[in-house]
Structures are given as structure tokens and as C-alpha cells.
């Protein structure tokens, strides 16, 4: 196992880099998209609510692998060529954004309805109240669950291996098939994944306790 670490260290580091890079990009965009759809889901307009709901339900109920492969194999035939890394990251973003939307929506709804009315009565518009009163509180509530989503994101980024996204899992596959040492190759990347995800989830547990 140690030999795999030393012999393939550069390849593993590249994989680690792409995994982290993809996860951070996907986190950034899925936070934005997730927030947008979460707000849509609580808007007074029924049309908007339905659109928001539909997006979340579709993305939540289709496997990530199907979404990712769709962007890798289908979209280039009809729309625009995208690389495996991009396809994987888009898939991750859309999939995760649905879960983030769910989390933030329940965060918003848990901030009492009275607050919105209170803010409106001081002369704020709906959007001002949302921006300055509701969302800041909602975000505070949802930080721990969002952290868990990030851990999921890092784990789910292994789907990039299916589309040649050069991530850790992809490197593990190529290392395993050149060294024929399957178990140790996967053990090595398992440890690398844990180095990212374990501290993150322990920190989130800690945060959860502190905020509770």
C-alpha cells in the first residue's frame, strides 16, 4: 500500500486536486441555484412555486449517474461539447442544488411567518424582508445540514470516474488496472477521501452541537 502512495503520488495528488476542485465549484453553484429555487418555492406566486417544486423533485428523484452521463454523452450530440470534468461537475451541481434547495426551503419556513409580516409592517418590501431578515436567519439554521451536503458532494464527485473526469476515483481505476493491486489501490484513495471528508463531518457535528 505504501508503494502505491509513493509510486503514484503525483497521479494521486492530481486526482485529489480535481476532486476538491470539482466539489468546490459544484458547492458554489449549487448554493446559488439551490437558494434561488428555495426562494421560488416559498414565493406567493403559484407558478413560481410549481416551477421550483418541479425542479427539486426531478433532480432529487433521478440518479446522479444518469444526470452526469446525460451531460457527457447526450448533450454534446445536440448542444455543445463539454469535457468529462465539466459534465461531471454540472451533474453534481444540479443534483446537489436540489438537496440544498430542500434544506434552505425548510430553513426559511422554520423562520416564523410573523417575522416576515413584522418586517413588512416596518415598510420593507417583500424582497428586502427576505434579503435582510429571513435569509440570514435561515442560513444560520441550515449551516450544519449544508455542511453534510458538502461531505456528500465530495463523496458523490466519484461519479466523475465514469466520465473520465480525472478525479481520485478515476486515478484509482487506472492505478488498479496498471498495478493489478486492486484492493490496495482503492484503499489508498479511500484514505485520501477520508482525509477530506472525516474532518469536515466531525467539524459539522461539533458545529451542530454548538448551535443546538
Amino acid at each position: 500500500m505504501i508503494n502505491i502512495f509513493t509510486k503514484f503520488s503525483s497521479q494521486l495528488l492530481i486526482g485529489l486536486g480535481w476532486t476538491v476542485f470539482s466539489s468546490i465549484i459544484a458547492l458554489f453553484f449549487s448554493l446559488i441555484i439551490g437558494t434561488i429555487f428555495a426562494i421560488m418555492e416559498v414565493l406567493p406566486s403559484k407558478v413560481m412555486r410549481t416551477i421550483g417544486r418541479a425542479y427539486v423533485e426531478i433532480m432529487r428523484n433521478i440518479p446522479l449517474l444518469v444526470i452526469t452521463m446525460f451531460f457527457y454523452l447526450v448533450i454534446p450530440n445536440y448542444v455543445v461539447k463539454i469535457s468529462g470534468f465539466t459534465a461531471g461537475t454540472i451533474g453534481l451541481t444540479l443534483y446537489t442544488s436540489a438537496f440544498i434547495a430542500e434544506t434552505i426551503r425548510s430553513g426559511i419556513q422554520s423562520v416564523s411567518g410573523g417575522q416576515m409580516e413584522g418586517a413588512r409592517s416596518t415598510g420593507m418590501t417583500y424582497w428586502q424582508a427576505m434579503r435582510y431578515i429571513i435569509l440570514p436567519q435561515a442560513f444560520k439554521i441550515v449551516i450544519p445540514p449544508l455542511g453534510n451536503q458538502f461531505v456528500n458532494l465530495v463523496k458523490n464527485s466519484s461519479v466523475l470516474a465514469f466520465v473520465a473526469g480525472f478525479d481520485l476515483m478515476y486515478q484509482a481505476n487506472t492505478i488498479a488496472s496498471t498495478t493489478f493491486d486492486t484492493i490496495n489501490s482503492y484503499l489508498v484513495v479511500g484514505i485520501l477521501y477520508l482525509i477530506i471528508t472525516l474532518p469536515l463531518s466531525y467539524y459539522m457535528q461539533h458545529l451542530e452541537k454548538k448551535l443546538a
Partner: protein
Amino acid sequence: MQNWINALSWLNLRFLLMGLWVTIYISVISVILSFIIGSILGIIRYSKIKWISKIVGFIIDIIRNVPLLLIIFFTYFGLPNFGLRPETIPAAIIAMTVFESSMIAEIVRSGIQSVSEGQMEGARSTGMSFVQALWHVVLPQAYKNMIPTIISQFVSLIKDTSLATIIVVPEMMQHAQVIYGQNANYILPMFAALAVLYFIVCFTLSVIGNAIGRHLS
């Protein structure tokens, strides 16, 4: 249009549905097994036997924090080192059960904890033992609250089964690949079919889960 008609011929659809059957079969067995194992682990986590609880907790944390793909690989390629040689479908069931058990264990643990400590003490003060109090008072309430969460785990499980295509488990994703592998023109219809079929199964379950959740609360 012709591609769609050819791609979604009865022959291909039947093959896809055979895959869906395997997907559901794997998911149902795994969810039942992991419900049992996860409950036991969750109770151990909650129990006051400190060192067992810690070790179990650590193993659960490891499993929860690595990609499911790795667990699938370890099951299929690693278990034979211990004298077990599962075929693809059993391997998928084992991998899903290991992964899902640790998810459910955490749900059960926090579910038990959320039933107020007072209830446990109250039950104990009437002369019940720890196990009796757990079984008759705490668990029924905890499980009632957990049902929606566990159903949503079931939905994740169905979706995650698609990853097992990497070890050529004959589930729906794998069968779709076989079909679009034979004619590259079938790829769009196949992805449409995949999306629709997964959506129908998962969404129906989600709706049921939500309905139960509302009914209980």
C-alpha cells in the same frame, strides 16, 4: 423519430424493465437488511457501553465518509480475500446494506436521542429495566418520527443502485448501457426512459413518505 420507435421497442423496453426489477429487488432487500442492522447499530451507539459505542461509531463514520463506489469495489473485489465470493447481485446487496446500515444507524441514534431524556427516566422510575424502557417507551416514538427519513433513505438507495453498473450488475442502468451500446442512436431515448422510470419509482415513494410523515405529525 424512427430512432425513438426502434429504441423503445417492446424488446428493449422489456430488457430495461428486467433491469428495473433487479434494481428494485436489490433495493428492497438492502433496505430491509439495513433497517434491522442499522437499528441494532443505532441502539448500540445510544447505549451507555462506552467503548463498544465508540468503536461502532468510528466504523460507521468511516463508512459514511467514503464514496459508495469504493464500498462496492471492496465488496466485490475484497470479500474473496475472506473466503466469500459473492456474485454481482449479492455483492451489490452487501455493499448497499453496509452503506445504508451506517446511514440508518445514525438516523436511529439521533431519533432515539430526540425522544426526550425525561421519557427514559420516567419509564425507568416505574420500575422498567433499560431494555424494557427502550423497547416499550422510547423506540415506538422514535420510529414513528423516523419513518419519513427512512423512506427518503430508501429513495437514495434506489438511485444509488445505479452505481453498481460498474461491476456489471444487471440493473436498470447497466441494461440501458447494453441497449445504447448496440446502437449509438438509441442514447437519447434510453436516457429519457431511464429518467422517467427512475423518477416514477422514486417520486412515488417520496410522495408516500411525505404523506405518512404528514399523517403521523
